[in-house]
């Protein structure tokens, strides 16, 4: 009997230790995990997109704003995953898409490497001139394509430039007019004003796409007013062209 009790007590003590260990981590991490955190893991929208057939780029382009859309495209890059959402730059041979805050687990985000083909269901929308797909979900499908940048330098200042919205593009021979940090110091977005043929354009190093540790962020930091550069990036729009820069080099 004594042996049994001793054994039982040893087991209880062992369990107590295990439970305490678990509790410790729970107390440390409990604050965030037990909080009523919004927008995590749950779908952000209250209504599912209606059944729509997969659209070509032309069909998507013609679709009205606020209509349900389904497209297939290839991931070219994405901004940092956050709060079960990810913003993706996608493209196919015909056009490009900006997939704003698409529902995405952290695990799936790791699969969205450049070239990955995805089918996206959501709604076409426009925000400050940027045409995008919002409230979307996706699935990975077979296929791979990485776009080459399209040189759109000659289209600057024309109405045709916007036809390439969201594509990976390049600009040749741009003169740097100003470099400004969003927060006044490195760490956040960098606003880059460049000029071409006497007109100024606002480009941006978007920190959630290319953060301070990236080569392009450092390369832009090193630029001086007056430098003449070639720029690559995604043709984002914010009240006008606002390319998200992905590469910069001295003009060739």
């Amino acid at each position, binding site marked *: 009997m004594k042996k049994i009790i001793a054994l039982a007590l040893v087991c*209880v003590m062992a*369990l107590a230790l*295990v439970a305490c260990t678990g509790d410790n981590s729970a107390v440390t991490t409990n*604050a965030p995990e*037990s909080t009523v955190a919004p927008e995590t893991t749950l779908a952000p929208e209250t209504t599912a997109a209606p059944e729509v057939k997969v659209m070509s780029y032309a069909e998507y382009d013609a679709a009205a704003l606020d209509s349900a859309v389904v497209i297939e495209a290839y991931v070219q890059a994405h901004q940092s995953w956050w709060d079960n959402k990810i913003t993706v730059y996608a493209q196919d041979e015909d056009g490009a898409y900006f997939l704003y805050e698409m529902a995405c687990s952290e695990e799936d985000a790791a699969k969205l490497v450049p070239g990955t083909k995805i089918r996206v269901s959501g709604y076409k929308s426009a925000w400050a001139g940027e045409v995008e797909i919002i409230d979307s979900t996706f699935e990975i499908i077979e296929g791979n394509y990485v776009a080459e940048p399209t040189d759109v330098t000659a289209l600057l200042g024309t109405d045709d430039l916007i036809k390439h919205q969201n594509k990976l593009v390049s600009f040749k021979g741009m003169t740097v007019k100003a470099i400004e940090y969003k927060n006044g110091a490195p760490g956040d977005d960098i606003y880059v004003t460049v000029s071409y043929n006497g007109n100024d354009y606002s480009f941006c190093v978007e920190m959630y796409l290319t953060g301070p540790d990236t080569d392009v962020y450092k390369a832009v930091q090193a630029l001086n007013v007056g430098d003449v550069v070639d720029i690559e990036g995604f043709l984002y729009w914010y009240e006008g062209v606002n390319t998200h820069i992905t590469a910069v080099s001295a003009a060739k």
Partner: protein
Amino acid sequence: MKRVLCILLASICLLSLCGCHGSAERHTFAVPDTFDESQTYEITFWAKNDTNLTQVAIYEQTIEEFEKIYPSIHVNLRLYTDYGRIYNDVITNIATDTTPNVCVTYPDHIATYLTGEGTVVPLDDLLHDKKYGLGGSEVRFDAPTAEEIVPQFLSECYVNGNCYALPFMRSTEACYVNKTYVEKLGYTLPEMLTWDFVWEVSEAAMATDADGNFLVNGQKVMIPFIYKSTDNMMISMLKQSNGGYSTASGEIEIFNDTTKEILYTIAEHAGTRAFSTFKISSYPANFLNAGQCIFAIDSTAGATWMGSDAPLVDISEDALIDFETVVMPIPQQDTEHPQMISQGPSVCIFNKEDSGEVLASWLFAQYLLTNDVQIAYSQTEGYVPVTHKAQNSAEYQDYLSREGENNELYYAIKLQAAKLLLNNTENTFVTPVFNGSASLRDAAGQLVESVTKSVRRKETVDEAYMEKLFADTTSLYRLDQITADGSGKVVLGEMPTASIVLLCSLGGIWICLGAYYLAESVKKRKK
């Protein structure tokens, strides 16, 4: 010997239970008798700016001045432009015990931080400490006393009966009105806007010519009414209508008939495209300044972006339209009793093992309330200082008197926005703070966004829609998991299996011990 063994084992069991309880809680901060300046303190300050580089410069200048006064304290600044990001980063850093020392925050967020017990320092003792409290004898700068903080603003920093923050700046919302277009449409602005007036004028502005150009501006784009913060919109409309939002202790009341009525009204005008939101369309200021919006509701802390002559502009110069801007309180249900939200950054202090480090943090937080910082920062936007000491100072009064002298420091719209709050401080309100109130606030905004999107997508908004919207919103924001006891605790779900096994085993062992003791007693008696 057996008894000794039993007592020993029972004691160990009890001790092990005690050890489990609160094993990872941080010690409670106590104000040190003296501030040990032989040590060097490295503190971090997470601050928020409104994408306004002047604000950044003021933060940097503030730190520089403070470090001159306290050379043993070094303040590292980390800047954000979004409260949501600060909130998420703090939560992440609570888990890794790497919280900042001083952090710009909202009381709603503090309520969540407090679930990590001892995480945020209660300031009640610090506020009134004779040596290091507000204006204390050992404080080396001209700090305000607790009584010199605007009481209403300080009261907003209390959570569960304790003060957990200092107000830093205060703002409210304003309706920036294109008066030129209101009058062009044949209306006269009333002294106080009503919702009915705003909806009516907005609908009138939707008239177009045969080519689809809006008659009022001659452009292809016109969204007469845009609201920046839809959570504030719902909260304000409910408050003005006496509709339920939540009780003080955290009982969720938002899913009610008044909310439905508000959403039906919003749906009606979103359906005609007379109304939209920042999340759906873009910044109200951009549309207002381009002559594509008539009623732009945004924070008074966004005033420098509003109007034809705004010092901060995000649209090209050729898109700017010349019009007369009027700064008004948000639309009201009862113009005799206007109600508007009080908002703006507060600062909290996170607890640390070293009480000297916490005291250093407190001194810096206190420094943010000095006149120099308060006045300089408030002048960057339509903020108002949170202390009477700053508000009543000659410097600030001079600033207010120079409205419109230029389009920078004395930009008329900005000063009018600040005066709007100064003249309506008694008409402001805040929502109850509890663990989960941040989620409720998000849910309030989501209701407006969802309805607006739905009607734009030609979905039917009816009773069935409302029921589903309420259910989905409850689920999405986990509002059904918020308890109403005001303790800030949430339902933690089922007890883990290991805990159940442990408790059962402990119970079992006590029974065995009891049985053994009884058996031994019986044996002894028989002997």
